[in-house]
């Protein structure tokens, strides 16, 4: 894959559209996340000046994320540009967003910050997370979500990814882990805006990539497994449009340029 440098605008969209949505699964899967959330009912908008925004809704211990800014949010966190948001998400302490609305909601902001730290620890595979089977499972699930949802941001803005995608057959690819509920994530290379999501895909996938279990998914997401051998051993099944799966795997490798070390 290309060694072309990361595009800050693509990275900010990856954070907003692929990383942030992981909060939904984190809150579903991790009791620690639900404990942080408690009985919070609020919405937080993350907005780049003149750029994209995302809304995070917290309700009854669950998180929902959507593109764009919602009306009357509890808090609006403003970023001056893509680089500002990118620095914030990559943990730079100086990159504090401007709370243009709701800055007085100290308790809400504090809990959101804790939730973000938990997400960061899981995605980055911090030692305490990977020390337990539950942590490794979460890491694998969320890494898969970022990788597949991230395809959309790459497809929309990363030139190297776009070049690879142009050579691929059109179709919908669905990635899943056997035995894991709600861990089917899909990317539609046939749609105009490169739709992506998780749950059952909107139509029958042209290719299904299935990891035999969480351990295989974990190893694959961390690039610790010989995937060709895994296919031969039946640990990874690729059914249908093989060249699409192969090509998307290459595009996912571009994530390393952007999200190291949280990329698969």
């Amino acid at each position: 894959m290309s060694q072309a440098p990361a595009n800050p605008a693509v990275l900010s969209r990856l954070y907003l559209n692929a990383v942030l949505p992981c909060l939904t699964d984190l809150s579903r899967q991790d009791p620690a996340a639900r404990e942080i959330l408690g009985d919070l009912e609020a919405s937080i908008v993350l907005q780049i000046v003149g750029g994209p925004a995302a809304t995070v809704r917290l309700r009854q211990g669950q998180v929902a994320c959507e593109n764009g800014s919602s009306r009357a949010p509890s808090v609006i966190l403003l970023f001056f540009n893509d680089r500002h948001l990118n620095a914030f998400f990559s943990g730079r302490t100086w990159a504090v967003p401007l709370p243009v609305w709701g800055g007085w909601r100290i308790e809400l902001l504090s809990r959101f910050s804790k939730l973000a730290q938990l997400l960061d620890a899981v995605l980055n595979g911090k030692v305490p997370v990977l020390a337990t089977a539950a942590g490794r499972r979460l890491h694998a699930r969320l890494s898969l979500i970022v990788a597949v949802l991230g395809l959309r941001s790459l497809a929309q803005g990363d030139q190297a990814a776009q070049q690879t995608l142009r050579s691929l057959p059109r179709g919908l690819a669905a990635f899943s882990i056997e035995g894991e509920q709600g861990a089917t994530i899909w990317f539609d290379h046939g749609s105009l805006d490169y739709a992506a999501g998780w749950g059952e895909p909107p139509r029958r996938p042209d290719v299904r990539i299935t990891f035999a279990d969480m351990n295989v998914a974990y190893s694959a997401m961390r690039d610790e497994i010989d995937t060709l051998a895994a296919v031969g051993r039946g640990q990874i099944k690729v059914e249908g449009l093989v060249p699409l799966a192969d090509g998307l795997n290459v595009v996912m490798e571009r994530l390393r340029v952007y999200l190291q070390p949280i990329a698969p």
Partner: protein
Amino acid sequence: MNSTSNRFRRSQELFERAAKVIPGGIYGHAGPAIGLPGAFPYYADRAQGSHYWDVDGNEYIDYLCGYGPMILGHQHPEVEEAAARQQRDALCVNHPGPIMVDLAEYLVSLVEFSAWAVFGKNGSDMTTWAVQVAREHTKRRKVLKVAGAYHGMDPWCTPGHGGLLDEDRAHIHDFNWNDPESFDRLLKQFRGDIAGVIMTPFHHPVFQPSQMPAPGFWSHIETACRREGIVLILDDIRAGFRLDMRGSHKHFGFEPDLICFCKALANGHPLSAALGRKELRVAASKVFLTGSYWNSPPPMAAAMACLQIMKREDTVAALRRTGEMLMGGLVEAGKKYGYSMIASGPPAVPFLSFADDASLRRQQRFCAEVTRRGAIFHPHHNWFLSAAHTPQDIAATLRMADEAFAMIKEEGF
């Protein structure tokens, strides 16, 4: 591989061992990932004529022919005797043997436009070298190729993704098969800097039906190359000697400047060759070419025998007849079950696919069922016929295909 399957128990055991000590377990085009994991055998045990047996004792009518080389069938007695006789004299010595000169002379006499020949081991050896000769001859940088075409495993052309730099392909540019306009655009964009155009005689990409050249396409390319002083390289690795003994360009009515052969050249013995016009002779002499085993005489003796047998027995015509019988029968069998089949490529190098199966699922299921019954059908890669395939083989294959069509129909594919 499906762990519940006893059919491939030995293959599975070997693969488990391989996965520990060999990256990918089996790498390259024979790797499970490009075939049908669980439905294809992984390891072969022996082969004879048009059949082979996997390590679990399952027998197959072979429609891959070692992915092309076995044009006369496995263990052809005359070819094997020629190679064995030569090996008794010398396997790998310090100098080439007389057979190298004999073979070069014979090939040059076969391929009318050529004045010289060189030898390597694999297709990539020759295609990469040919590109260098084109650059040396023209003192230009750019090389044009067809998008999706396979020319080997070197960085300028590998279909793989690992270990590549953007710079590896800085001067390699793709145009579309049967699209003279996309070719002309590159011609205009890089006029005066194009060293060579490398193409296969017909387009045989993986995962897709093969495409024959549209009327006028080859003459368009040939005319432009002549006009612009571009070296036209024919990659005849896959089709060579299956369409015409004089090179596949004769089949399609054009003439390249360089031609690369491999696969069918020596009926399975490791040998490749490149032949060229006399005008390229000096450039060819300047491009370094060697390898540890490249002077080994036995494969050259095998090639000489193979070429002479093919000529004597008119293998090209035999392959065409067998291929037509097979593909015609398959299309008819599909029709019987309501399937619209595409028989693509020349009959000697055919490929079968379903007309309305963009996801390839039906194709994969069908090929798995035929393979299970005893004829190996690759769902993603073109097939190969050999002179050893008999009418009985074809009839047996068509029976298996009929059963497979019936089964997938019942399954709702």
